């Protein structure tokens, strides 16, 4: 994929293409930390785009009580105004600023600098399971494709007074799933797609298993989505390694309270191991674009919607497949 528009000014994006992370000069304030001045933080931020990139060094003074996103913002405001980063609420409620901090998937706004070893260089890189758009921003449109494939909530008739009755105990589990802020960190760490791009078209991922479990457990819902979950959304591919649960910033027990109960319900519906294995072996999915298996076109789309297909092509996905990292 080519960069859609020509750069208007030169030079600000370091590490593009093969220049990579060779020997970048530290940007930012003077690296000579004065004994009386504030301590210096050393960060490496991944910079680049779909064509490649690498880590760029920055040094900024340490300030009290900051989170990683604050430091990234200071770098942006003072040294790299074109540094691309997504964020909204800065309070752990919107799930926009997902990234990998020292290789660990986290929300930048909820990772305090004091919890990191700042005597070492801190790296911040984009989520690995999604194609890079630019710098720390990834193309998460896969998730919107999956969301559009889930048949919506369909309630039965209300009480005679036109309202519904539900006991708190019956909505507790659903409420746990609805805490989800759609940061997509669980999708990012799920090895079914992190390590196998070609699973994306037929795999919903933990975020959407949680959504499906929530619908399945909703006291008022009337639809049966179990066949869809097992036959089209790949529930069987999950082998419950719990990586999703571990990274969930909302502490949702995705594996125990969503995926396992969902698997049990699917099994209850129909379980024939021989036929299952047969279907599994015979159906060797080719790396198909997400929309080829989507029931509908995604309704939520980004800047180049016709190329959502192209972006699901492993050839242009993620830093995994990139040649230029050196």
């Amino acid at each position, binding site marked *: 994929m080519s960069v859609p528009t020509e*750069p208007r000014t030169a030079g600000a994006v370091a590490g593009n293409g093969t220049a990579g992370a060779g020997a970048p000069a530290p940007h930012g304030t003077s690296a000579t930390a004065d004994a009386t001045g504030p301590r210096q933080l050393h960060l490496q931020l991944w910079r680049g785009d779909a064509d490649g990139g690498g880590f760029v060094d920055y040094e900024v003074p340490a300030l009290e009580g900051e989170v990683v996103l604050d430091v990234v913002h200071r770098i942006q405001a003072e040294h790299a105004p074109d540094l691309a980063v997504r964020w909204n609420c800065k309070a752990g409620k919107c799930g926009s600023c997902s990234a990998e901090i020292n290789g660990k998937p986290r929300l930048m706004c909820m990772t305090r600098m004091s919890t990191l070893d700042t005597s070492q260089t801190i790296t911040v890189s984009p989520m690995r399971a999604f194609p890079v758009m630019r710098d720390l921003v990834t193309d998460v449109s896969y998730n919107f494709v999956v969301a559009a494939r889930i048949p919506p909530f369909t309630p039965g008739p*209300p009480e005679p007074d036109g309202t519904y009755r539900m006991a708190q105990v019956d909505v507790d589990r659903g409420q746990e799933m609805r805490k989800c802020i759609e940061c997509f960190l669980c999708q990012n760490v799920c090895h079914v797609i992190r390590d196998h791009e070609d699973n994306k078209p037929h795999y919903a991922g933990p975020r959407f298993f949680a959504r499906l479990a929530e619908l399945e457990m909703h006291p008022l819902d009337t639809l049966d989505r179990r066949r869809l979950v097992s036959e089209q959304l790949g529930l069987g591919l999950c082998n419950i390694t719990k990586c999703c649960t571990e990274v969930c910033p909302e502490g949702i027990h995705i594996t125990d309270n969503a995926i396992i109960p969902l698997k049990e319900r699917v099994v209850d519906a129909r379980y024939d191991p021989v036929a299952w294995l047969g279907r599994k072996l015979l159906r060797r999915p080719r790396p198909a674009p997400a929309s080829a298996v989507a029931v509908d076109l995604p309704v939520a789309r980004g800047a180049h919607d016709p190329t959502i297909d192209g972006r699901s092509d492993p050839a242009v996905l993620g830093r995994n497949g990139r040649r230029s990292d050196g």
Partner: protein
Amino acid sequence: MAELETHEFDVIIVGAGGAGLRAAIEAQATGARTAVVCKSLLGKAHTVMAEGGVAAALGNVWPEDNWQVHFRDTMRGGKMLNNWRMAQLHAQEAPARVLELEAWGALFDRTPDGRILQRDFGGHRYARLAHVGDRTGLELLRTVQQRSVGLGVQVFMECKIVSLVLDGSGAVAGAVGLWRETGKFVLFKARSIVLASGGVGKTWKFTSNSWESTGDGHALALWAGADLIDMECVQFHPTGMVWPPSARGILVTEGVRGDGGVLRNAEGRRFMFDYIPAFYAKETADSIEEADQWYDNKRDFRRPPELLPRDEVARSINAEVKAGRGSPHGGVFLDIASRRSADDIRRRLPSMYHQFKELADVDITADPMEVGPTCHYIMGGVRVDADTQATNVPGLFAAGEVAGGMHGSNRLGGNSLSDLLVFGRRAGQYAAEHALGLSAQPAVDLAGVDAVVADALSFFDHDGGENPYSVHQDLQDTMQSLVGIVRTESELVEADRRLGDLEARAAKVGVEGHRQFNPGWHLALDLRSMLAVARCTTLGAIERKESRGGHTRDDFPAADPDHFGKVNMVTRRADGAVTVHEEPLPQMPPELQALFEEAH
């Protein structure tokens, strides 16, 4: 110029928060070809930050509650500056809008008999806020998001509208957008446009608002010739975090106080008893003994002063800190730890527990929180027809925070989420009807569109121009220090002068890098909106020579019911300049006026 990506719709909705998505659902259901355009990803809008609840007189907890009581509370909370008809529609329709969410899959907390539970909030006579712990906004947004997706509403994500396009008659014809990802432009041809772009908080330094809240809708409306009203009425939420510095301004829900939390100064005193205004004296407890009994027996006791409307509480905190009785980091203490069990706190306020634990290393089940006022909401906004949400520009509608009038000079907690639903729906319906009533798509002047694009790209030509981030910082400092909670004529005039300088600087800022996902460039464009808002707020604040709700003047500390209490401050743009003038408030009919005479 190369051919521009173009889409044609009946209704374009700017913003994907609660109001925008509710409008989209209605417009789509009405049969209009509908699309939503939003600056962030779908599901990230500022609505997710709303914590406490959605106010609706369902009467589930207090059967005595009804729309008349809610209407009265809303008008009194707004210090009677509200558009009475909006307040009436809001109170009447909110219950149906909440129940509808339940039919779309929302899971509110329940009463023992299985209905929607309601909680207490400031200024509401009865426990009225339907809620989900302290993450009600997320529940609301997710519900309308999933409903929109289910209906197949088109959503154009990460696209900023830089200008509206009008036809030769001055009616809406479309909008020019900027794809943030690619830096390319897009033309949306539309018969109706609904502004649902939210607030303006990023114009101030300490704010609970996210980066998106730059007043884009207010500015688009102003530039298109729409009237704004009462832009001086800005709500500083009394309880934002004050420490650590990077978390300053992040919201601490009013639900903490609704659920038993109290405010104390450095001496440990519950100082709110010292600040009960005469207007609320009859319904507010004047002793700790009485206040503490209210939580369990609301029939026989009056409510604690911590639950006065937000403007009163924010001003009181401000005064305590100024008097030297503040907390170590310049706030006051919000204490729930000594009043409720740790389990209760974690169950009722899970995200507050989480937020303080993660960001401030404070365990709110053991220690008090340090809090202080933070810029939270603008009551003023685009002037709309109460029933249809139509502006004075044909085809242009506005709903939610961007619209003015509903909340008067001060908004009650919980009334924002209900506002989004009630008026989002109305805007969607009437925008669709307007669109479907037109015989043809309005004509778009492509030369004008090219000029908009060229203008937005001009920042790349300002080689060596100033960094937009520093202009933004200076704007925030100016508004925070000169047009903050307590205002005075000389400072407002100084702010107005500085805004002139800032406008000149903003016009010349330079942008580094290229067009693809370039936050510096986006900020340069957002700055224009913020400066427009800042100007309107400052002009309105100079002219409103009284104190009322979210507008407090040191030099005019009392409300002026005979003059300013009867007028809206109208700002509009004519011949390139923004002007302000007074216009009389719409008159409430006698049967509604009677509600204020008989009450209490």
